[in-house]
């Protein structure tokens, strides 16, 4: 669930193997932003067929291939098995169950054809995809809160106070992961379950025609900068190879600059500290 909320906001989460703006989870099983279901689920089978298949699998197959078919100490992962992926109604699985791979160590199992078909139906009902996020509940609060207080005071204490501006900070978030991500880089994570935090805007100063303009930074590339002054006027100043110079005031500069020196243990400890104040 969290994944969904997060993926919707952070376009860059997915599609890493080949960069682009589509989440892997979506690309695999859901209607992707492109409107194409990448790998459609198999047609749904009646519950009694799946129940029979699961029961027969548990008795006959799970010992080697794992209760979830993802592989065991002896048997390979069946979720990514080429045979299972290509099989439709058990027609490819059946000969193997009936002894076609004795040489590779797969024993002959005396099961009726219909039972193998049930097992195949159950296997095909399991989600298989290279981009799936497990639904396991993982506790990310593993750090030491006392060490986290020390780290917080050193890293963050100049600008922030856990009892002042950040009072009740952790409680604003549904998930500790959202909170952790936000204290590292405020304003990036948005969407459901996220509080509306005030992140001060980036401002800039530029001198144009002898006049010094300071205000909120708008569109800014190598050829022009837009600065909106306190009176609400947007000033567009043309730029040429860095002239005139634009001085940017980034309120999150410290956050960006701390990334290279921030240790994972510090992150976990600070998160544990902030969570302890929840």
């Amino acid at each position, binding site marked *: 669930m969290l994944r969904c909320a997060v993926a919707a906001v952070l376009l860059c989460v997915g599609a890493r193997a080949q960069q682009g703006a589509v989440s892997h989870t979506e690309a695999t099983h859901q209607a992707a932003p492109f409107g194409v279901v990448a790998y459609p689920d198999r047609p749904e089978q009646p519950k009694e067929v799946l129940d029979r298949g699961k029961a027969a699998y548990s008795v006959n197959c799970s010992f080697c291939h794992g209760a979830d078919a993802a592989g065991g100490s002896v048997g390979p992962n069946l979720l990514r098995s080429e045979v299972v992926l*290509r099989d439709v109604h058990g027609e490819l699985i059946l000969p193997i169950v009936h002894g076609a791979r004795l040489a590779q160590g797969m024993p002959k199992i005396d099961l009726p054809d219909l039972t193998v078909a049930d097992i195949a139906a159950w296997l095909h009902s399991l989600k*298989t995809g290279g981009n799936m996020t*497990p639904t396991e509940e993982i506790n990310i609060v593993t750090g030491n809160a006392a060490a986290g207080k020390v780290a917080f005071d050193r890293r963050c204490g100049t600008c922030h106070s856990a009892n002042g501006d950040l009072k009740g900070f952790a409680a604003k978030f549904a998930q500790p992961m959202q909170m952790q991500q936000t204290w590292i*880089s405020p304003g990036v994570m948005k969407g459901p379950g996220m509080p509306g935090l005030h992140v001060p805007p980036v401002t800039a100063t530029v001198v144009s025609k002898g006049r010094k303009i300071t205000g909120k930074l708008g569109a800014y590339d190598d050829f022009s900068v837009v600065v909106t002054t306190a009176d609400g006027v947007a000033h567009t100043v043309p730029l040429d190879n860095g002239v005139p110079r634009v001085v940017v005031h980034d309120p999150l500069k410290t956050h960006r600059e701390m990334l*290279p020196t*921030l240790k994972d243990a510090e992150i976990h400890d600070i998160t544990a500290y902030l969570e302890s104040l929840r």
Partner: protein
Amino acid sequence: MMRFFYAAMMAVCVSTAGAQSLDPSSILQRDVKAWPTYSGDYTGQRFSPIAQINTSNVKGLVEAWSQKLPSEVTHSGGVGTTVAPLGRVSGSIVQVDGVLFVTTPDNVWSMDAATGKVNWHYQWKTRGGTHIGNRGVGVWRDRVFFETPDNYLVALNAKTGEEIWHKEIASFDLQYFSTMAPHVVGDHLLVGTGNDLDEPGMLQSFNPQTGDVEWTWYATPMKKGDEGLSTWASVDAASHGGGNVWVNGSYDSETHLYIFGTGNPSAAFTSQLRGPGANLYTCSTVAVNVDTGKLAWYYQTSPHDTHDYDSAQTQVLVDGTWQGKPRKLVMTMARNGYFFVLDRVTGEHLLTSKMFASTNWAEETLDAKGAPVRIPAKDFDYAGALVSPSTQGIVNWQPPAYSPQTGLFYVNTSETWEMYYLATTDPRGAMGLGGEQLMNLPSNGGWLMAIDYTTGKPRWKHRYPGVTGALAAGVMTTAGHLLFAPDIHGNLIAYNSATGRQLWHQHIGASNAPETFVLNGKQYVLAAGGDTLYAFRLP
């Protein structure tokens, strides 16, 4: 006077009624009137010898035409039932005989290079597959080839757009998807494919006439006795080990080697079941003989990768100088944050350079082969590991360029960061790219770099304005002492390639690498911005 007029008329006739046919051997001679293959030529340099547009006159460059890719379909095919949205251009546009061939996933358009007028539009109805991008067509004689996301190689008549045949590249059931531009080398059609489950990567050679497979090179060992198997836990792990081939490489005609990159090992992040070894030949630059399909040499840029750091950039072949002597080189930058120079005949490692101080997943010291050494503590962590670069890398598929005039390697980069969370306690369930949760952090800056390959250090670099960065599209150099490079704000910018001074720009939302050719005596610069093509020339 009369004579001049006649010549101009002839030129117009040729451009509109050209043969639309490409003799594959002609790719070996640089024809400035065409952009006949992925990188313009086989070197991957994306350097054009055309100097008509140069540092003095580039400021006068104007739009010759622009054309939004139309949705009207003149020919269709396909084995599925779904028509995907048209998508964006993120590949190379091949130009032969004054005709452009441009693609998005499932779609090919033929357009007049002088006017942008569409000749035909072929659309493939799809079964599905990851519709993330398409890198363009290959042209062989009078045929145009492209790959589809549901794994077909389709042959079209270049002139009419009619389908000649389609052949299956890889299994859709096994969740392959295909994006590479078929690469024409002589009478070989080199075809790569991608996969985000646990299937092995491969490069296949197809016969462009018949569509038969001539050879298949697997990126991982597939059976007992295969080279590299000792770097995997078992045959089962190796043959489900990934290493996909999804970006075009470069070709050395002297050694007959196709030199290209492979993707991440699988499972990508939870690596326990792969064994502790290097997991060859994933995350590598490899050289495969195009006649035999056999591996000549390899260099692994990320041994035992755990961060999805594909070796995803097109390799750049340079006849350069190394320690005072002429040497045949290949250069590449990997997603993992490092730039590499190798001997392209032997694969011998010559140089590794870390591009950003922030890159933190590897030790400061390199291994005996010059490759980065992964820090296991920077693998996935339940509570999160802060890693730079992100899985997208400091670079990705967007092509770099090289200029023989400056000896510099040009590339758009981004200092990316990401929190890597482990999302399962059971590595068995974590197939492909699963088993993790990634949380992007803002990039700390997008940079255009001009790198001296002899030192691996930037001669000059330019940070794009803004407090954060991103990865911009690919780049091109020309003999006019120019570098054409898209920025992260949607501009296509012309630079003095030696100094980095900006000379011209146009806001087009550039989504691919620019290219150039001469048409009717005029040099054109062509680039795509999403679903629209833009052609520029001097007035």
